[in-house]
């Protein structure tokens, strides 16, 4: 486990005025961790008014969807969990394997009691007396969470027992079937799941897995109701979300925003002030060359196009993008988008679980080809090979790692096509070798790295 815990500051989005009623999940003033007393003083005790059946109806009315990336309606999962016999094991997913995302870590550090409240509610709805909190390995974070759980046990407010389970520091550690596999004691690798529905934990037993932010929203809906929840966000995608912003000047922050907020507001993009002949758009952190939405399985967008879009799946899905886990990054001008993507592609390849032939064969080859395209005069073969391998890899693994990686890489080839043209002629817009997108050091080598 690592000892240090660096979390980016929780700060409002640069371009927007503070939206009314926000923040909900984080305290209004600064990022001071909220202990049980302060939590109860702000929100009051958890009311189980009407029992789990009423809660599911309230969640359905609120329209809360998963905040882990898949955006699946929570009410449907809770209803399925309530019907499952025996009661499913309830797990809060705080693994946050995406290197560019810090929202779950921040939420767990600052407002653990919202997450723990939500976990209790989910356990009650599922009819389970035990729950698990699956959190990325970090000594300080685990210490803080253990303390929060002990505080609640001393106050006698929890009906279900909560166990802390450390997640390995892998990109795929938070994948639903990888989490379930880890809970059975094996390394956290994704499993083949031909049948939809609640994931299978053991013969005859299922699991209900929810992102920790979703659980926090659940805890607030139980107290304040569906109508309150819908005061933020859009009609189709209600509520607020924690977003991890990477501004062009290198500043990173975690911000709670209403769904549907403009990407221009998030990053302070000002396309009207852009130089018409240039390829960058000014923003709160400086000129922006491209915008990445959705993290490393997400999609690059040209900045002018991004400035017209909201952070909402209704607008992003038709473009092949998605809100995902709320990662939005602005690539500064003067950085080569192909080089940045190549570095990330290498990381994604090394993070393959090594189980499915197309994935562990294709992703490293694609990364190597992209490495070529990021260099001078790559030649035609690298591009042709990359396209062929991308076609062979997508959809042929047990999980969506190959698909998401290919989506990310293909969007880079689209958005940075002009850059590719420059590279063919031996030139590049990148002025410095320092990398921009965050990536962890080291690489997995054995089963121990997945446990």
């Amino acid at each position, binding site marked *: 486990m690592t000892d240090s815990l660096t979390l980016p500051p929780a700060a409002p989005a640069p371009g927007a005025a503070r939206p009314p009623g926000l923040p909900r999940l984080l305290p209004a003033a600064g990022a001071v961790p909220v202990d049980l007393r302060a939590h109860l003083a702000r929100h009051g005790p958890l009311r189980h008014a009407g029992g789990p059946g009423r809660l599911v109806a309230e969640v359905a009315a609120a329209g809360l969807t998963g905040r882990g990336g898949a955006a699946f309606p929570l009410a449907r999962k809770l209803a399925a969990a309530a019907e499952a016999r025996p009661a499913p094991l309830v797990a809060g997913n705080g693994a946050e394997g995406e290197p560019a995302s810090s929202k779950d870590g921040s939420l767990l550090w600052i407002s653990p009691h919202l997450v723990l409240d939500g976990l209790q509610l989910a356990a009650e709805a599922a009819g389970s007396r035990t729950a698990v909190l699956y959190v990325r390995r970090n000594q300080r974070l685990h210490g803080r969470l253990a303390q929060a759980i002990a505080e609640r046990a001393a106050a006698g407010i929890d009906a279900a027992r909560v166990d802390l389970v450390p997640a390995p520091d892998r990109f795929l550690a938070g994948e639903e079937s990888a989490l379930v596999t880890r809970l059975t004691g094996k390394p956290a690798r994704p499993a083949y799941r031909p049948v939809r529905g609640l994931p299978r934990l053991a013969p005859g037993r299922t699991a209900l897995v929810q992102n920790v932010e979703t659980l926090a929203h659940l805890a607030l809906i139980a107290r304040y109701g569906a109508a309150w929840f819908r005061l933020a966000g859009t009609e189709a995608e209600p509520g607020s979300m924690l977003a991890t912003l990477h501004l062009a000047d290198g500043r990173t922050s975690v911000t709670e925003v209403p769904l549907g907020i403009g990407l221009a507001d998030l990053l302070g993009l000002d396309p009207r002030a852009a130089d018409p002949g240039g390829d960058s758009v000014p923003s709160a952190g400086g000129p922006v060359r491209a915008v990445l939405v959705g993290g490393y399985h997400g999609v690059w967008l040209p900045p002018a196009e991004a400035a017209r879009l909201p952070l909402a799946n209704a607008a992003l899905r038709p473009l092949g993008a998605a809100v995902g886990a709320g990662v939005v990054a602005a690539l500064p001008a003067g950085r080569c988008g192909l080089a940045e993507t190549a570095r990330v592609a*290498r990381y994604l*390849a090394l993070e393959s679980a090594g189980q499915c032939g197309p994935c562990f064969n294709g992703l490293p080859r694609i*990364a190597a*080809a992209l490495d*070529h395209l990021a260099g001078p005069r790559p030649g035609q073969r690298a591009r042709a090979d990359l396209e062929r391998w991308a076609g062979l890899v997508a959809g042929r693994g047990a999980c969506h790692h190959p698909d998401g990686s290919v989506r990310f890489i293909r969007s880079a080839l689209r958005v940075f096509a002009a850059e590719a043209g420059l590279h063919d002629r031996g030139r590049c817009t990148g002025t410095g070798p320092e990398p921009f997108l965050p990536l962890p050091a080291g690489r997995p*080598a*054995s089963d121990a790295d997945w446990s």
Partner: protein
Amino acid sequence: MTGITSTTALWYASRATGVVTMLLLTAVLLLGILVNRQGRIPGLPSFAVTGLHRNVSLLAVAFLAIHVITAIVDPYVTIGLAAAVFPFVAGYRPFWLGLGAISLDLIAALMVTSLARARMSRRAWRGIHWLAYAAWPLAVVHSLGSSSDARGGLVLGVLAGCVLAVAAALAWRLSRAAREIPRAARAAAILSHMSARKADLR
């Protein structure tokens, strides 16, 4: 002339089919190791290895049945039907025959589970299939002690050959498994390989 009576014929048949069964079981084990390591037989397509393993095992079971039935029917020694499946109850060399009975029970389990493979979980099927590594040595020891044939000559030579073949195959299997790249390192290995071949991509 001293004729070969029917009883002697049955006894000879049992011993002969016993040797053939031992050879076939050895072949099945060797083929099984080949299937597991995805090895190929030169000149044959890859589905042939699985096919041979399955067909030879059926043949082995057929000869095993004849071997057991002729031994039971033969009045020269008191081996009843029970002795075929329950160990150590035979009237003749009960210990050595008992080992054969255990081996037969294990082989029966292998057969039944393999026929019902589609209806079982993969883990359960694999777990039971490992019993093959118990069934075969039991058959070898049974062969050594069940009749005087194995004291010398051809039969002993055949048994020795079977044991050497299986030992060699096991050594091959273990060395292949030891050299296999662990899953966590597979992508990294291919990435290094691609970097080494950098020039080829141009």
